């Protein structure tokens, strides 16, 4: 089928149907998952890819970064396992940071889909596993090998038969294996569901997925090019800084708009660190594209065509393009700075379309230990205030640029031996301005375990706040306290039964002078 036979009506109908199928598979993943990371926080994505690994449709609710990474993962799988060796019922797995999403906890599952004996598509899922072994996630880690089990691209199932060795190695290396394997089964169910639905579609509609993919990607590319061309040519720069280890971490962002293309260059950003806040190139690319898509083309359903007019550069050996085996576990602590950095640069030319920096990067708290002899491992997320924009105040405590929900307190208390003593808005912590930044939040919890608990955090902007934009004031910085005393969250620590932790997330920056 040539592209000319796919008229604008059939194309619209097919595309809508594919997005619905992917959403149904995502629902399966959420409903069958065993960890609250997937079902409460939504740390997952589901995609449908064509036979070349190009994105056809993605789940509506998903993490922005995963959308760019899953197609790349599928292509890494294809590079190792030639397509002619793939069989119906094969399942491929990897969590390699450079081939996957940039850190080990995210397990990627890629499944080839066959129709009339031919490989026509792939289903892809990724979900943040509740544990991946190693030390618990912390920015303080110095080597990738400390961060847990690394699974190179492997065949998890051979024509429907499980590779027992892979399951057993995984089971033997993680803390809460029931949850980890339960989530893996949930992913397999989701992949299977998507496969089933695509086969049903292909049984009733005669469509060549390759030309369909070519067509929608070309159209998305043209739309993005038109949106970029509507901006005046120019070069804009912005520098962002957050707390580091000694020196601040710097993200230096230079955005060049030229005709219908955009080049984002991060030269001048920090060097790669022997700390787990390095960002692999696919993640750098993903969050840069995400920021541009929010501003330029938010209503176009997502696919890779949108990103063809975008070039992203980061020097090798820098924090945004590190050399293996740099530790990467807490890569969100740097990667989440990219969208506000891009917004900062573009505020010079399109101030009405951007937002001031939010109280991000995302915060998290990871607790492991034993209680009454039973092991537990629990991870939960907290968000800071939203950055203000020209037209609206920021909301308090909302996830950006990621999209990770909180864990309800009533659920959290079933997941770990803790009691939450309060969770409230930190009123007045958003930056002042013509529009106010959103407020941060404070969560206080007490350790109820009968043995010491290992704790680690992602928590930043304790010294350097989220800046305002266009004359707006910065938000208030965050705070981490242990029993009321200031506590350094950058290293893994051991805390005692009865200890009290306070996590206070930063406010977002204000927009415009008061």
């Amino acid at each position: 089928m040539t592209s000319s036979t796919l008229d604008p009506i059939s194309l619209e109908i097919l595309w809508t149907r594919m997005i619905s199928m992917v959403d149904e598979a995502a629902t399966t993943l959420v409903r069958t998952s065993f960890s609250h990371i997937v079902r409460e926080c939504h740390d997952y994505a589901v995609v449908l890819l064509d036979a070349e690994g190009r994105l056809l449709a993605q789940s509506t609710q998903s993490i922005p970064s995963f959308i760019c990474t899953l197609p790349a993962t599928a292509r890494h799988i294809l590079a190792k396992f030639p397509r002619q060796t793939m069989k119906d019922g094969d399942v491929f797995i990897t969590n390699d940071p450079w081939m996957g999403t940039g850190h080990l906890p995210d397990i990627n599952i890629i499944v080839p889909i066959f129709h009339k004996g031919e490989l026509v598509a792939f289903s892809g899922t990724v979900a943040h596993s509740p544990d991946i072994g190693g030390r618990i996630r912390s920015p303080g880690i110095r080597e990738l090998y400390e961060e847990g089990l690394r699974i190179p691209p492997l065949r998890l199932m051979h024509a429907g038969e499980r590779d027992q060795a892979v399951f057993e190695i995984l089971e033997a290396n993680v803390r809460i294996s029931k949850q980890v394997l339960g989530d893996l089964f949930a992913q397999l169910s989701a992949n299977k569901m998507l496969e089933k639905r695509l086969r049903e579609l292909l049984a009733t509609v005669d469509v060549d997925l390759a030309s369909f993919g070519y067509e929608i990607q070309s159209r998305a590319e043209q739309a993005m090019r038109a949106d970029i061309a509507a901006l005046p040519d120019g070069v804009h720069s912005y520098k962002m800084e957050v707390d580091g280890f000694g020196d601040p971490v710097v993200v230096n962002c230079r955005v060049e708009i030229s005709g219908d293309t955009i080049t984002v260059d991060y030269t001048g950003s920090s060097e790669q660190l022997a700390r787990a806040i390095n960002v692999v190139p696919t993640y750098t690319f993903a969050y840069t594209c995400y920021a541009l898509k929010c501003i330029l083309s938010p209503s176009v359903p997502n696919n890779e065509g949108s990103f063809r007019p975008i070039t992203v550069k980061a020097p090798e050996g820098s924090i945004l393009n590190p050399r293996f085996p740099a530790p990467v576990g807490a890569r969100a602590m740097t990667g989440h700075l990219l969208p506000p950095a891009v917004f900062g640069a573009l505020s010079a030319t399109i101030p009405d379309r951007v937002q001031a920096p939010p109280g991000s990067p995302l915060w998290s708290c990871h607790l492991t230990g034993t209680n009454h002899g039973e092991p537990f491992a629990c991870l939960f997320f907290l968000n800071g205030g939203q950055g203000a924009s020209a037209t609206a105040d920021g909301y308090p405590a909302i996830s950006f640029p990621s999209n990770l929900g909180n864990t309800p307190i009533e659920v959290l208390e079933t997941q770990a031996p803790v009691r939450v003593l309060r969770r409230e808005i930190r009123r007045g912590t958003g930056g002042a301005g013509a529009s106010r930044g959103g407020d941060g939040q404070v969560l206080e919890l007490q350790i109820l375990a009968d043995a010491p608990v290992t704790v680690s955090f992602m928590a930043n902007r304790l010294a350097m706040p989220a800046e305002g934009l266009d004359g707006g004031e910065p938000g208030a910085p965050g705070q981490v306290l242990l029993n009321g005393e200031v506590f350094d969250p950058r290293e893994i620590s051991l805390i005692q039964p009865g200890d009290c932790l306070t996590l206070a997330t930063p406010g977002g920056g204000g927009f415009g002078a008061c």
Partner: protein
Amino acid sequence: MGSIRIAVDIGGTFTDGIASEQETNLIWVAKSLTTPDDPGEAVSIVIDQLLNQVAQQSSTTVEEVVHGTTLVTNALIERKGSPTAAILTKGFKDVFDIRRELRYDLYDLTFRLPPPLIPEERRFDITERISVEGEILHEIDDGELDRLLECIDASGAASVAVCLLHSYRNDTHERQIGAFLKRERPDLMISLSSAVAREMREYERASTTAANAYVKPLVSTYLSELERRLDDLKIGAPLRIMLSSGGFTSSQAAAETPIALLESGPAGGVISALNTGLAAGEDNILAFDMGGTTAKAGLVQNGKPSTTRTFEAGRVHRFKKGSGLPLLITSIELIEIGAGGGSLASVSNLGLLNVGPESAGSVPGPVCYGLGGTQATVTDADLWLGYLDAEHFLGGTMRLDLDATGRALEDIGTRLGLTANDVAFGIHNIVNENMAGAARIHIAEKGHDPRDFTLVATGGAGPVHAVEIARKLGIRRVLCASAAGAGSCLGFLAAPVRIDRTLTQTDAIESLDWDGLIADLQKLAHDARTELQGAGANIDTVNYEVDVEMRYRGQGNTVSVSVPFGSLGSGFAQPLITQFEVEYEKLFGQKVPDGTPEAIAWRLVVHEHLVERRFVRADRQNVDADDSPVRRRKLYQPILKDFVECGVYERARLLPGVHLQAPLVIEEAESTLVVPVPASVSVRDDYSILVELSS
């Protein structure tokens, strides 16, 4: 002398009413414009009309009045509830602001969230704490209760929501606060989260309780006012209220938990579709309703409408999922599957033809209405394809402008390189494909095959699109009820009394204390019986079912397994596990190896049996039958991809027993049934029309 029951449904535009005579199933239909400032007025008018109509043919007494209303929905959308206060566990009074921290639209930086119903200054916290196991860690101090009372007095609140942490496990503190407030301030309306939505997850429970409290004074006043009006009309009959769950209850119980009547109208629509299906011997029904702005679908399997425990009210951002207030109520599950008749067609920035979600509404409306609309809508496409008639729309009361429609379609066609005919069928086909696609997924998610269902069409645009949607789904039978315009009322009349009660406790099935469980459920059953009697049910014949919310230990979401109450007991563990695993595998493709099945909630549903009712319109009794076409016109036939001349029939003159061959069109004032493909069409003895598609 016979007895009648009356159903009244207040909709956005019209208040509909139907009276039905118990012995004969004759029905009388009335309608009046809704009176938003005093909704009870239209109710009085409609009932008065009905009584006059009935009196001409029969001498009767009114046995009961069943009522459904959009009052609660509207109060939440328009924020017209009462000033409400909240009492929350100390340290957690910002639960309404923190929500779940998620953005419902990944790319739209300008997304908006609904403002909390209870503002910060009317939220008060109290020092108390219950543990995750339900144990009281910190008791309530009397002095604090007095302080709380002062705060509430000063806030001017007429209603109070009480939502404490872990109250789904232990409601002692909530009940203590409730009793104290009731004693000290008898006029204050009180809503306890453990009574309104006894579920884990504090934000969703608090949101539901706040919404209940927010509308409670309004609903309470409205219902007592309505009872007074019934007295004025000399109707001594009790007032029953239709619930979102598809059952009805006494007006006293409804006033206590008004949030439960949120979606009563649409629920009535599904019950009505089920009733039509049952009369035709079908109990697997796809209820399809398509109005001006949206199309909805509901599924009935084995005579049981599928229900859901999550709902969202008052979406603030382009009707987007996630932009409303989450509510934990039992409601008949209706999913939005697509656009409505007024939905606008456009060319997207990808150069594709899009339909909706923007709607032309009633003003300016579709281009063909001639009220200023210039952008083609679904209705315009339907007109162009010959599915609607420019000269005979709404029973000939409104002329449509076909030329203007043609210009609007050509305008889109120019941009896409297509003809007006292509664009018209493109719009029609996109809408149908999208609806069929969404319905297909919904049915598949429930583990079923669409071909096992019969489609029942309602709403102004429903019968226009129903046959094509059925064809796309592989459904062979389409039913179109009589008096479809007042479908919700028919549902109210057919609905059973129903009471829902929930027991939340997590137990592995293998080690369950069955005696303790059954004793607790007996208490709920006793409580439900009292309410049932209040709603006029014969408690000797009611049905007791338990929907068990099950999962594998460690999971967060559940699969519902329905069992008869009487089957519970220690010998039931293995059958229950088997039933769960069968259902799980059906839904998700595979069981979980080595999983431990557990139950987290036992939902007791006590209801009357649904008895099929074959309603017959009293005004159809003496019409002159005529089964020849009143006109002929050209109809676009999707299989032939061309226009072919077909017969047009008048529904009022088609009597039971008539058989016709499609393609054809059957017109009535409220809607038009379009059968654009070969099919056999017959009128059944309840005046519903059955379309059987050729395979």
